[in-house]
């Protein structure tokens, strides 16, 4: 009984992974085919980039603030408060910035895509598109995946900057550290080896958010629960996938660093 169940759920899992891979494959074969829906791409960029900015900014700011406040006592105990900018800078640029921004976007954009495409599927808007001669995969899926892929790194950069600013404010108030000193400390501790991998990672994060959201929405079950489920599982699967990508990215970056 138990083994049967695990085999079944394993099968479900593998089919899901296979389907997503197939979906990704379709993305890569279709993305270079004309026509390219540039206008829709820009519209999606605006929706995903600009409209997430406030959320990402506020979260980044709070993270920077809280992170600094929390680590301050410990560093103080070692008399190493002067290291705060380096520590905050490295952890935000390398890890916290990308992953927090990606998770926020998985929640906002991923579920948004899942729900939007899901309801379009359920209300036959996707079919309507198909019969009116527009390839819905190109129009809906490719534009969205590209938009998340390109917008996420930018959101990450802006989120990083705001988080660092939040951290600076704490240091400025509590430790009387000037803007110039804070940021020169941050940048002196950073290397290209910190910035480049995390930027590349952000592209993959964006791709994952778009891919899973679109997959879930595009293959949504008919019915209203289908839409909810699509939105919900888009977030869950994306978050999971984000951590997997993060893990792989760290491994790969480490490998490159060693070489």
């Amino acid at each position, binding site marked *: 009984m138990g083994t049967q169940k695990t085999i079944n759920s394993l099968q479900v899992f593998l089919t899901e992974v296979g389907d997503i891979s197939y979906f990704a494959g379709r993305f890569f074969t279709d993305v270079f085919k004309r*026509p390219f829906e540039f206008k829709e791409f820009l519209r999606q960029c605006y929706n995903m980039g600009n409209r997430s900015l406030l959320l990402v900014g506020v979260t980044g700011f709070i993270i920077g603030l809280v992170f600094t406040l929390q680590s301050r006592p410990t560093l103080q105990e070692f008399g190493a408060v002067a290291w705060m900018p380096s520590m905050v800078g490295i952890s935000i640029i390398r890890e916290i910035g990308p992953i927090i921004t990606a998770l926020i976007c998985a929640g906002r954009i991923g579920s948004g895509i899942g729900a*939007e495409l899901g*309801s*379009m599927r359920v*209300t*036959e*808007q996707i*079919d*309507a*598109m*198909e*019969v*009116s*001669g*527009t390839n819905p995969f190109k129009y809906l899926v490719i534009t969205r995946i590209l938009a998340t892929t390109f917008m996420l790194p930018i959101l990450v950069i802006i989120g990083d900057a705001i988080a660092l600013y939040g951290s600076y404010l704490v240091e400025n108030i509590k430790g009387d550290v000037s803007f110039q000193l804070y940021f020169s400390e941050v940048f002196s501790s950073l290397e290209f080896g910190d910035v480049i991998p995390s930027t590349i990672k952000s592209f993959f994060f964006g791709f994952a958010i778009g891919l899973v959201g679109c997959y879930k929405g595009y293959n949504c079950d008919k019915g209203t629960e289908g839409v909810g489920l699509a939105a919900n599982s888009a977030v869950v699967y994306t978050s999971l996938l984000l951590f997997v990508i993060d893990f792989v990215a760290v491994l790969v970056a480490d490998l490159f660093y060693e070489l």
Partner: protein
Amino acid sequence: MKKNTINSNAVITIRDLKKSYGDNYVLNGFNLDLYEGENLVIMGKSGSGKSVMIKCLIGLEEHDSGTVIIMGKNIDDLDHDELDELRTEIGFLFQGSALYDSMSVRENLEFPLRRHTKKFGEINDASPLVMEALESVGLARAVDLMPSELSGGMKRRIALARTLILKPQIILYDEPTTGLDPITSKEIVLLMKSVQEKYKTSSIIITHDVDCARAISNRMILLVDGINYAEGTYEELVEMEDPKIKAFFK
């Protein structure tokens, strides 16, 4: 038998269409001929497979077996581009209107024009076409509204305008009057009639609505158990004694 001959006048011919979802055999050898300029009404119980049939017809669903010939072309033989081109000649009014929620009425109407440029050439300003289509459904004032701001009946009419904008030769209506009050239903029926007169279209109309069927049909097909159970004019069918047919006209 009329059933198996292919009439040269037919714009759409369906032969022995089969479609199943797993164990659910929805269509078991459905046949249909649509003649030029005619309004063919298809009736059937909910869940009998009417929508599935019409989607197989236009290539949105793949059928398991059988042939579908539209204006002399077997849709199985067409590649994607040819199918797209053929679809410019077919308007499809979806059961739930299927307006694009994220676009205004104008953008909804312009949407089909984006790719079907072969028929019209490059369109610089779609406005006249949009307004013409909107005027023919009597909703020119709604041009800058969003779908969420429209009532169900208005949505239906906008959806009709969206199918009309390509000036199709064939229009497929999936339950155009369902969910509307009798007065609005009547308006829609009148609209369909006027469209048919204006654009000289051939139409397949799926409906449960007996009044609608009587008002608009030249000929009717009853879809029961996945086949074309009975065919004839409204008057012929009403006269039939079969209890399964009688059930429709109570």
